[in-house]
């Protein structure tokens, strides 16, 4: 009953159980944090708007993104992944979501920011439906914890539109 094997086994089992318990508590504590992030996006410029040679529209635009995601950070947060996506509908597709820009926010200090950037990823439609198209810009965030459950949510900003003619 007191051999090395039994003691090692008991110690191992106990430490694994204790670690699992601590991870669960850490993850649960995230549910109690009060979160109120805010964001605002302006389109500064439509740089290019054309039809690619094989029939798909492509847009390049410059965005001005202001956001305050500081309230998302808890002691159990490893990083927040934020991205901006354009959402719109076309005759063939009930929903299109195209990610335009993303960033990894490693800590609270970097979570309040304003940047002006052209879209990091190409905004290409399946077809040529984008002339005069109205779309939403959504800022999504994905909270990645040090351990446990991941949270994601978004702010939807409607009311943006593309020009009626190619540029």
């Amino acid at each position, binding site marked *: 009953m007191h051999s090395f*094997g039994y003691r090692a086994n008991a110690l191992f089992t106990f430490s694994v159980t204790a670690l699992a318990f601590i*991870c669960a508590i850490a*993850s649960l504590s995230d549910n109690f944090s009060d979160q109120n992030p805010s964001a605002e996006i302006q389109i500064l410029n439509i740089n290019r708007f054309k039809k690619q040679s094989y029939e798909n529209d492509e847009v390049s635009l410059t965005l001005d993104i202001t956001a305050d995601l500081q309230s998302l950070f808890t002691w159990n947060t*490893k*990083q927040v*992944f934020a*991205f901006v*996506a354009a959402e719109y509908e076309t*005759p*063939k*597709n*009930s*929903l*299109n*979501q*195209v*990610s335009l820009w*993303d960033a*990894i926010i*490693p800590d609270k200090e970097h979570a309040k920011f304003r940047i002006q950037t052209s879209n990091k*990823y190409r905004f290409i439609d*399946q077809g040529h439906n984008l002339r005069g198209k109205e779309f939403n810009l959504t800022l*999504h965030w*994905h909270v*990645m*914890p*040090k*351990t*446990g*459950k*991941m949270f*994601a949510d*978004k702010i939807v900003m409607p009311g943006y539109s593309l020009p009626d003619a190619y540029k």
Partner: protein
Amino acid sequence: MGWIGETVDSIKSIKIRQLLTQAVTLGMIVTSALIIWKAMMCVTGTESPVVVVLSGSMEPGFQRGDILLLRMTKDPIRTGEIVVFKIDGRDIPIVHRVIEVHERKTTGKVDVLTKGDNNDVDDIDLYADGQMWLHRHHIMGRAVGFLPYVGWVTIIMTEKPIIKYILIGAMGLLVITSKD
């Protein structure tokens, strides 16, 4: 001389009973582990409720050796979700984020494009030749939770199979030599 024979026999029979008990106990442990695994598959709705992160393409969020807890529901696939998918003809599951979704009005089918957070380009080059999008049937689950470092055990056992044999051998030895 008769009672020596009897003693030997009784010793032999005790050993057999002990051996059988230990075999049954071992069988029970293995079977309960299997039951727990299958139950997790039912609850989470995916074939593999747990995956180990194998590459650095999602750093710094997920490092090699972390474990991801997965769940698959009938909810539509949307951008920002971290999904685990398999390319046709390849065995290794890949964990990346969805960056583009196009959902058909009539059929509800989706075209999905993914990208690893730490990669510069999207996953088009990873897909099969000529494939431009992922579809729902490629996706095995969404990542909902995360445990750091625990997956290193699996990585070590896969990359250095010697360790796997040593561990199993040691466990077997422990079972056989335990006195109760």
